[in-house]
């Protein structure tokens, strides 16, 4: 009898623990293994965090000790990423960050990221840009492991190399 009671207490305890663990898991499902962050280029992974420190630490590094003297939010590691201006650098960092969505738009031959990329590259026509990128999908993403950075470079490379697109703002890269 005593034994049985003991077992029940154990079960009870286990149930409570299980429940609280479930509660905690519900409360913060993002908590998993620590993710890399920081110097990961402009990819979304450098910013998105779940409950992990990625996002905030990137910015903690910036904001600590700044004192009216810096354009806030600029870090040395990600400054290109957060200043989307027309040109090769802007187009590349835009592509890096938007990779998850843009790779789909490239395969589909159209989409918002392609229209924005067209503007950043100073290209003439978004549907021509879409068609050109679609045909070059395998050059841009030769395999699943391609880094965000290489993805961005490949996108800009394809646009700059296709003279029919007349991407004015990407000219310096084409010449290089």
């Amino acid at each position: 009898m005593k034994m049985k009671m003991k077992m029940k207490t154990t079960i009870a305890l286990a149930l409570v623990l299980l429940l609280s663990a479930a509660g905690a898991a519900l409360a913060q499902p993002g908590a998993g293994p620590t993710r890399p962050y920081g110097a990961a280029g402009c990819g979304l992974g450098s910013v998105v965090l779940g409950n992990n420190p990625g996002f905030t630490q990137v910015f903690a590094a910036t904001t600590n000790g700044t004192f009216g003297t810096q354009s806030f939010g600029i870090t040395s590691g990600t400054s290109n990423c957060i200043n989307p201006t027309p040109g090769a650098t802007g187009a590349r960092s835009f592509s890096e960050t938007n990779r998850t969505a843009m790779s789909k738009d490239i395969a589909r031959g159209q989409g918002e990221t392609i229209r924005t990329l067209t503007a950043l590259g100073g290209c003439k026509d978004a549907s021509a840009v879409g068609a050109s990128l679609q045909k070059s999908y395998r050059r841009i993403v030769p395999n699943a492991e391609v880094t965000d950075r290489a993805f961005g470079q490949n996108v800009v490379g394809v646009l700059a190399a296709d003279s029919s697109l007349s991407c004015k703002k990407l000219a310096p890269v084409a010449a290089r």
Partner: protein
Amino acid sequence: MRTRAGRGARRASPPRRAFPAALLLLLLVLGGLGAGARDAAGAPPPLSHPPPRPPSHVAGTERGARPRPPREGGPPQARPPGAPSAPAPTPVDPAYVESLVERARARGLARAPMWLRLGHWRDSFWRSGYLSEVDGPAFFLSPRGQRDPAAELDATLRGFFAPATRDPDRHAVCRFPARLQWLGGQLGLDVARIQVRDCPGLRQFIQLLRPRAITLVFSSYYLARAASAFGHTFLRVEKQDPLATEERRELLDMGVDYGATVDTGNALIYALRGMTGMFRGYFKRLPYYYKVREYNDYESRDLWEYQLDLAPAQVMMVVAHIWELGHTWFDYYYLSENCSYHILGAIEVADPSIHLLDHISTPVIPSETVKALYRNPGLVRRVTYRPSLETQFKARVRGLPGDVLRAIQRLAADPAASLDALTEQQRIAALDAAADLIDMRFADELVFDPGSEARRRKQRLLERRSEIHVPSAELDVAPPWHKAPHLSHGSRRLGLGVGGTADGDVYGRLSFRMALHDMADPPDGYPDLVSFEFLPATVRFATGGDTPFVLEELYFLRIRHINEWTRFNRRPSWDLRAGVRRLTEDECDGCMMGEVAGGGGWGDAFWSGRLAFLATIDTVAGWGPSLAGVKDSGFRLGVGPTATLRAIVARRTALLFAGDWIWLPEQERKALWSVSTTLRTGVGTGSAIDLQLVARPGESSANVSWLLYY
């Protein structure tokens, strides 16, 4: 995706009084300070195309590490020869500055609402006088600035006319452009006496933003993470399109966010420190596309955008103030001084006639801050909607025939699955939807794990899709206008009613809920399949009993979350509650029991959410001082099924059935059960009538309540 649609009315032109002051700021920032500054008031330079200037020599040499903005936007141009260059400033004259200080005092500017907004001073709760919510000391030029708006005003005026600093960006004029803009408008400052000629950092900031309009963005409720369950708001600073194309590139706008710098992964410590102001909150800026990718795609949350009807000078004022706030911090309070609160505070400096913080109360709920915009008639110029990835996916698969839907399912598991039976258009539809499905299911792996199976699947799908050299059609998602957050019922709820039991007891009934929504509440503005209640409580009062007031229930949290069970989504539904309630069964009639209960199961919805169903297996753990539980201890343990059925019978009328049965092993009572029926109908804009029948061992009751949402 072309899914944007605008709604809203223009109001009469907003006040323009601040314009000359804005000009002052612009001239200073854009380097035109000098001869023509004061007589150019009638012909402001176009906001859209600030003249590119060569990088200031001052900025470069002293802080070589400072990043520069990429300059492909246009090669730097030298100032045209012969153009009037800025003359040397008039020498510092202490008498002039002191005369300004006197005038400011005589006019009582330190008590002006605008000045108090610029310094975020509020009546101190603890002591007489003011206290600023800003906690970073660098925000104040006077050592007493945080508590003394007048001292800070004097110090600001003196700072504006102080000798040039070695680093111009450290000069008061460059650090506090919004104060400059406002004080300039009030006192007519003599700009020729300002000793700095240029603010390189601020100038870069303005040139990067090219502000045209301010938009408040509401990111929908995200139950998967506690901190975002109530939604989130941030700003989008709309950019003048440098290429002047017809279609705007809003992804390139700047997002401005206020959030806590969280340095713990521990939920308990997070909650504790978040409630007590032990995190620092910072304003941060990131391109809007980061926000879109994070919220719209990665977290699958719809975004609602409220463009504000502000004049150019007012836009400039907000941007200038964001610059000021970007260099300091606030103590972050999860419930009061949170993201939504300070975002509103930043908007409020646009004009003294705009009142936002007056219309919100603690706890500050993001959707309530959206409604505060509407308390200022005409302030919202336009509402737009940006559908989440999940919403887009649903739009993609809507109306597709069964064999295409099956193909999508197959593709998500095996990206090489054959599509030979489909037409080209169907193949495109299947591949496009399958790619979205992979993105939804494997958001984490795709972003963080380059070697993941998810990435390989997506790659194969996209390779196949790219081989069909036909562009996909534009996806057209009709905005669900009735779900716009400004239409939601008030976040707090007060209930007053009467009830009676089958035994003949009659009582009054008072209920309160701090937040937010349950499945019987009017559904406009809230997710259809979620019930999220924070601090709901019910008290009965009667004259006949031992005590006039009896607590019926007080929950800390009570959540029901239905995940629609579709061929593409097999996530379980779940419920969770934690709190205290009064028992009615004979063995312990009137006992109080604290409980934590929750479980998972199956849920689904039909007819676009009008009929919803949830069935779970719940575990209950409770404790009460007089409870006869396991081993005659005060602990109760049980497990059993629950069921909930909700029908929306009219737009604002819902019928809710709920029942549960719980097995109590090794306890005096073997099992317990309860059933309830609720009929609730919205009345007017902010209230509802609620009819409720409840039966459980020991008590059956009927209640009628009037519910007020506020």
